[in-house]
């Protein structure tokens, strides 16, 4: 069976799995962004906490995904839950790191003049520092998304959703004519998701970058 035959026969089902995959990626990237940016904002000004935040989130990425999914089965069971938690953990480092880098790259003179104008700490953060750091933070979120798209395929081992299910189904159908087109279509679907997300980030960067610093 050729890949094209397979795609036309299984198109609807594949589209469903692709949307499922995209869904779990978007949910995980969203949660990872909220936690990651918060961690970055909370730690960027003090060396000790900053190092701990980067160290701990860095260690998450060193842990092989199969082992992390395995560790999460105990407390969280099988399915989407452990999958989302693991994916959120994998997305944290690039987001925390770029939030810290972005906030620290803001010219202190600008922050000081905002302070001189009487802006309070939180107003400075939300009106001045975060908008200036945003392009760098957004790059971190994009990298997190790319990491998460690929690892989400492994979530299928803990009965997680997405195209990974088809990779494992194909493996179970070893030797049958549909096995190869099935795994190929899953891989291509995952690459397609990565490309779509990447393009979406280019658009998001244009739309959300503050006018004054747009290139």
């Amino acid at each position: 069976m050729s890949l094209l035959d397979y795609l036309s026969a299984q198109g609807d089902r594949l589209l469903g799995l692709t949307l499922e995959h995209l869904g779990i990626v978007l949910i995980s990237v969203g949660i990872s962004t909220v936690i990651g940016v918060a961690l970055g904002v909370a730690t960027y000004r003090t060396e000790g906490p900053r190092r701990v935040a980067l160290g701990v989130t860095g260690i998450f990425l060193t842990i092989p995904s199969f082992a992390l999914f395995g560790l999460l089965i105990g407390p969280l069971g099988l399915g989407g839950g452990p999958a989302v938690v693991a994916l959120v953990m994998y997305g944290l480092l690039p987001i925390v790191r770029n939030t810290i880098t972005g906030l620290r790259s803001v010219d202190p003179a600008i922050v000081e003049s905002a302070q001189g104008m009487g802006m309070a700490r939180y107003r400075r953060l939300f009106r001045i520092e975060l908008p200036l750091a945003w392009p760098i933070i957004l790059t971190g979120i994009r990298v997190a998304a790319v990491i998460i798209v690929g690892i989400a395929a492994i979530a299928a081992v803990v009965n997680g959703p997405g195209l990974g299910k088809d990779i494992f189904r194909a493996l179970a159908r070893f030797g049958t004519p549909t096995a190869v087109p099935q795994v190929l279509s899953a891989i291509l679907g995952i690459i397609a998701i990565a490309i779509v997300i990447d393009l979406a980030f280019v658009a998001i960067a244009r739309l959300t970058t503050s006018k004054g610093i747009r290139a």
Partner: protein
Amino acid sequence: MVLAGPPEDQGGVDALSLVAGGTDIFRRSRGVLGLVGLPIALAAAVAVLFLWVGNKQLDSIEQRRVNPEFITNALAEHMALAFTSTILVILIAVPLGIILTRPGARAVMPPVITLANMGQAVPSIGVLVLLALVWDIGFWPAIVALVAYAILPVLRNTMVGLQQVDASVIEAGRGMGMTKGAVLREIELPLAVPVILAGVRTALVINVGTATLATFVNAGGLGDIINGGLVANKQTVIVVGSVLTAAVAMFIDHLGGIAESRLSPKGL
């Protein structure tokens, strides 16, 4: 674009190079503690794990996976997978990176970098399963999948490392009468070594992680323990396999970090 742009356009981050270096925080303390702090912590974690298991009554299914022989064997298989693939990656990617940065071949560099970045989006489990289906199961197909997946960071870092060498330094070498080969061996490569080593460490950590999935294509490794626990629905086995795998990955990253700082030429 993350997928298309060179890494330096992304504020220095890209998905692959983040995998290694997580344990560097433990090496920050000076002296002996920086070297043995993490191994001691990991050994303590594994000791706690075995005390916990030792106090449990294991049934026969659990005993089949959680026993010294099975674990040592899985660990040996895992190391064979990770190190064989990393050595092959170095043997292929470093010479290829050198060839691709020679003056005649510079035009191919942007597409190769684009391809290397695109590769980040390919799921490792997909590559493993595809190779198992179209070729065979077992050690060597798994090695090919691991090499294909981990070659990108070393290839890219070799090229980036060689390209960042100051052109005036190369010219000075040529002006002193050094041949092109001598300039490469004595100037370009030593100056590129730190960047190349960072890529090798990344490849090693990726391979340790991906080798966990080799169990699905009958190539063994520590994934055998986790998967055995999953299939038999034995929580204890899953925890033993997962904790051991995580500890091994962190230990290897730690060793990679030590090697990275020790092997970099002094004076850089």
